[in-house]
């Protein structure tokens, strides 16, 4: 039997109702808060991506290396901080979006989408001589060739063994290569002169990279590791991100060191056998890639010859190596005495493009495009101008999503990779 304490029971029931009601209120409040936070996050992420697209589409809206605050939709609610910085042959788009105390940032390396000439298999300057094919040479894709055309040949005991000379269209080339703009050459020059370091954090190299590993975000100042003497990057060392390693004499990269997105600049750069990584190399004298190296996408090998000396500047790949990216050899001296040479050996693979305003000696595979002044063939016995032997050029095997370094004029730009 219940005692007559109805007021006590009523208070308890009211208390329970109050607790349930306030729980309901709190649940509704937090639920709304959570939805608001989620939709806000989604909006600032969208704004960051919109910012990256804006950087890639507009060269005039943003001044290079300067941070700009842009009101994306003109409603004063969606502002982003945008910056485009040159990163070797590529560019890096930095986008930061804010909303209250929330912040979202993204960085992307971007380059150019190949168009007409870059999409072809071969562009050989019209210097009055025909292109001669020998052995198992295979060319697939549109070719821009001299007026003298293309023919079968016989050298080193080898006849041309294919059915057709070119599996694709043949168009006539001009007497000059597609022009590389002065702005791009100046940008490349600034990479391998110390002038480019003036705004960076410069570390003097003294025998090794501290703690064996160094990573740096593209939102931070560039770390420039500098030495007047030879730099040896030892096995086991790890460098990633916004880092430039510069030597006034030579850089040597050992087999087991790991590198990602960094830039190496020196007159001579040597990559030891079996190295695997993703690097941009800038040299004025020579680049030697050892045997069985794998230079991952997006890598770039650049020779920029600016001084007259007696030797040719060479990019040389030992047999069994591969590069996914671009090879760029540029002689700025307009001198015929010394030239730039790109040398691709047997069993080497280039996925991407080769641009040389000097010579290209091709014995391996190119899945992409070659644009050059002259093709030459060096054998143990002799040297032949305008000859290809046992080489393969196939631009149809290049992925449609492949993005080149920002070195030649192109209308469309695209993201190469997301970085941090």
């Amino acid at each position, binding site marked *: 039997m219940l005692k*007559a304490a109805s*007021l006590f029971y*009523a208070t308890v029931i009211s208390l329970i109702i*109050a607790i349930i009601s306030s729980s309901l209120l709190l649940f509704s409040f937090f639920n709304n808060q959570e939805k608001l936070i989620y939709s806000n996050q989604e909006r600032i992420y969208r704004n960051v991506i919109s910012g990256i697209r804006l950087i890639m*589409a507009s060269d005039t809206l943003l001044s290079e290396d300067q941070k700009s605050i842009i009101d994306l939709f003109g409603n004063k609610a969606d502002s982003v901080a945008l910056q485009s910085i040159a990163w070797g042959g590529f560019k890096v788009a930095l986008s930061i979006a804010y909303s209250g105390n929330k912040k979202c940032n993204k960085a992307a390396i971007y380059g150019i989408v190949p168009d007409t000439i870059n999409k072809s298999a071969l562009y050989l300057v019209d210097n009055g001589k025909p292109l001669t094919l020998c052995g198992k040479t295979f060319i697939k894709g549109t070719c821009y060739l001299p007026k003298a055309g293309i023919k079968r040949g016989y050298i080193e005991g080898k006849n041309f063994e294919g059915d057709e000379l070119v599996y694709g269209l043949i168009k006539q080339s001009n007497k000059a290569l597609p022009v590389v703009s002065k702005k791009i050459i100046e940008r490349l020059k600034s990479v391998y002169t110390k002038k480019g370091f003036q705004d960076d954090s410069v570390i003097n190299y003294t025998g090794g990279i501290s703690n064996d590993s160094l990573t740096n975000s593209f939102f931070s100042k560039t770390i420039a590791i500098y030495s007047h003497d030879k730099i040896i990057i030892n096995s086991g060392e790890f460098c990633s991100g916004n880092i430039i390693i510069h030597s006034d004499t030579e850089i040597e990269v050992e087999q087991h060191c790991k590198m990602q997105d960094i830039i190496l600049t020196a007159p001579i750069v040597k990559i030891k056998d079996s190295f695997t990584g993703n690097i941009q190399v800038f040299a004025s004298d020579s680049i030697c890639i050892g045997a069985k190296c794998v230079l991952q996408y997006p890598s770039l090998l650049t020779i920029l010859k600016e001084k007259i000396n007696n030797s040719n500047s060479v990019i040389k790949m030992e047999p069994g190596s591969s590069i996914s990216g671009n090879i760029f050899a540029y002689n700025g001296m307009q001198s015929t005495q010394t030239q730039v040479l790109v040398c691709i050996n047997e069993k080497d693979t280039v996925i991407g493009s080769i641009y040389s305003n000097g010579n290209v000696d091709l014995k391996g595979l190119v899945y992409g495009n070659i644009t050059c002044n002259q093709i030459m063939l060096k054998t143990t016995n002799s040297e032949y101008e305008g000859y290809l032997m046992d080489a393969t050029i196939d631009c149809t095997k290049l992925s449609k999503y492949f993005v080149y370094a920002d070195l030649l004029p192109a209308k*469309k730009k695209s993201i190469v990779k997301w970085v941090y």
Partner: protein
Amino acid sequence: MEALVAIIVVMLGFVMGTMIYVNVMDSDKGFKKLEAASMVREIVAQTKSGDDFIEGKVTKDSITVVKSVVSYPNVPSLMILSVDAFDIKGYKLCTYNEIITR
């Protein structure tokens, strides 16, 4: 007397509780907003995948979705895609703005 007060207290508690419950349920347009967000996402995906850059208006289950595509000022290769969703009373349920490539 005690019983009377107790009845009033319990009744007041129930009334207030019911009012809170009704108001919370009524004020929360969560389900409608989720439905609107889903419709907006679907229209954005269709626009991007089909290159359908034509302005339009769609009404479904008392939600009206308005899509507009305008050129980005001074950048001809870009466009601003805006999609807004409204309920039957014209209350904005969801809004979506993005810069897209032509």
